[in-house]
């Protein structure tokens, strides 16, 4: 699932470590989500949207719409 995490993080000049601390996960988790190797659970996706103050749809792209 594609996402804009890296771009949004760069806009705020946050390191992966800083974002990981805000989300209370490991830096590896942030890295895995950014590179699309791991899709976060719904609770973590909501946490990410809270941290960036955006909706989930503004961060993560809908895979079914991507393929359409």
């Amino acid at each position, binding site marked *: 699932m594609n996402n804009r995490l890296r771009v949004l993080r760069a806009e705020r000049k946050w390191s992966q470590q800083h974002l990981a601390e805000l989300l209370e*996960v*490991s830096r*590896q988790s942030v890295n*895995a989500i950014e590179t699309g190797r791991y899709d976060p659970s719904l609770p973590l996706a909501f946490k990410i949207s809270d941290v960036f103050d955006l909706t989930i749809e503004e961060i993560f792209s809908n895979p079914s719409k991507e393929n359409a």
Partner: protein
Amino acid sequence: MRTQAAKRYQRRFLSSMLAYVGILFACVWATNTYEPTGVPLIILSVLPALPVIIAMVVMGLYLIEETDEFVRQRIVSAMLFGIGVVLSVSTVLGFLQYNDLVGKVDVFWGFPIWAMSWGLFQCFLTWRDSRVGGGE
């Protein structure tokens, strides 16, 4: 960076393994010295297995206590990989033994093979992660 659950796991696992070594040596010494039979021999035979069973409980606790879902998913993947290795090895071994190509092999090797496979797969995942995406 290790999570708090991982630190707790390492501490508990090390304790159980130290207990295993201590109990194993004590049981081997008692068996050789007193040459027990019957119930005492059964007890001395089973005692070394208890810390190993505790180590498995510790691994289960690690899975329950790990709050980082990505790390937890990797642990489960590595555990499944370890199970696959043990089942593959035991299947091949079974057929080799069926044709009398291999003699008796102690089944207690199952746990260390599983644990080592798990550890190696975790190392592989860490190495792969270090190559993809990089850190900032």
